[in-house]
């Protein structure tokens, strides 16, 4: 009850924090798509490089977020950006690489070789094949990767409050330090809700962007 009262009283602040959180996740995943998808496509050309890149990305993702923030802070403080938005965004970009690169890579590798042969035999260039056949077929899986990245980054974004990046995690950190259940629950619920909503929204986007021919059966 108290929590609801708190939420009602602080709606503008919650909105503000929500916006910070969304921008943190949006920017990092946006950048990660721009880097991860081309990398995922490129490494389909070489098994050795694919193994290497995926290995590095999987090591990065196992590093606990606060530890990665911790390592980035002294490095970035060299350019005067030790605390705040930048280390958070960089860490989130790094975390988002694995799901996006891996899904892009596997999706393209899983395209039926017969389709690739048909495309080649009909006289498509490599780029035409990528654009007309491989990417449309891989798209649902790539979006799934983006989806995992977004959910992951919403969770990690909550921790970014401890390095001064704001976001919904602020309610949780204040709730903990002030042993204020109302703030604690406000933060926990809003960040969970954001994650669940983003998850379903991207699921919807995936359905919309998938060719109807792939949705059948």
């Amino acid at each position, binding site marked *: 009850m108290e929590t609801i009262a708190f939420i009602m009283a602080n709606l503008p602040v919650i909105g503000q924090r929500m916006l910070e959180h969304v921008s943190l996740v949006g920017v990092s995943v946006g950048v990660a798509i721009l880097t991860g998808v081309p990398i995922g496509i490129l490494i389909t050309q070489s098994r050795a490089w694919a193994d290497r890149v995926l290995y590095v990305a999987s090591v990065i993702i196992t590093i606990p977020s606060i*530890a*990665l*923030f911790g390592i980035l802070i002294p490095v970035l403080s060299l350019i005067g950006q030790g605390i705040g938005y930048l280390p958070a965004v960089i860490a989130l970009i790094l975390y988002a690489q694995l799901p996006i690169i891996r899904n892009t890579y596997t999706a393209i590798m899983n395209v039926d070789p017969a389709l690739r042969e048909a495309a080649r035999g009909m006289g498509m260039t490599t780029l035409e094949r990528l654009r007309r056949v491989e990417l449309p077929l891989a798209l649902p899986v790539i979006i799934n990767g983006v989806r995992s990245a977004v959910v992951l980054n919403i969770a990690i974004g909550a921790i970014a409050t401890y390095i001064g990046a704001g976001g919904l995690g602020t309610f949780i950190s204040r*709730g903990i330090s002030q042993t204020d259940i109302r703030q604690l629950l406000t933060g*926990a619920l809003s960040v969970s809700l954001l994650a669940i909503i983003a998850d379903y929204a991207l699921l919807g986007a995936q359905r919309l962007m998938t060719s109807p021919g792939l949705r059948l059966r």
Partner: protein
Amino acid sequence: MAATGLQTAFRLLLITGVFACGAWFQANGLLPAILKHRSDVIYLIRQHLALAAVSGAIAIVVGIPLGVILTRPRFEMFADAVTQVVNLGTTIPTLALLALSMSFLGIGAPPVIFALFVLTLLPIVLNTIAGLRSVPQPLIEAARGMGMTPAQILRRVELPNAVFVILAGIRTALAINIGTVPLAFLIGGGGLGELIFTGIDLMEPSMLLAGAIPTALLAVFVDFLVGQIQFWLVPRGVNPLR
């Protein structure tokens, strides 16, 4: 030819990078400063690992039987519902889960272990269900046709064929677990997070790194270890990696 050239370039870059970092640390006087925290680090690593081990062990002991039960014919109807709920559960951010756990159980190790247990349990249950369901139906039919009891089928056919997927779940779960332990400090559970968070608050890079570097290495090492166990424990016939 170009590939091997790139390969050596890659390796050189890596070595130079590590070397440069080391040199920089040393020049800053950061390395000695980090080493000052050695005794703290060793104590906290122990605490860190204890939290992960206890919560992880409970989750494995509970999670696998739960997954098995949910794939038995009598309870199968619940499996989909449980999967749905668990999937939803995995989208809940870890910090939120810790916070919720604290709001019910207070401060200290118990809420941390409970939160870590829940986090770890979810992927284990999911993968146990998925692994058992992926066992080809003809195998089970053949086993039944040879006169195996349901318990024998489970032990001799289903579990051995699902073990790879189940272990993959345990690996994911433990990676999440060990990745979340640093947050335990926030609700009074101790662990290496103590050095990191305090280091951030005090703006003291040496303390920060004394926590962050072992935390990162520990997580990478545990994941590597579980990966090796998964690789060697799963028999060749059902191990896609071997």
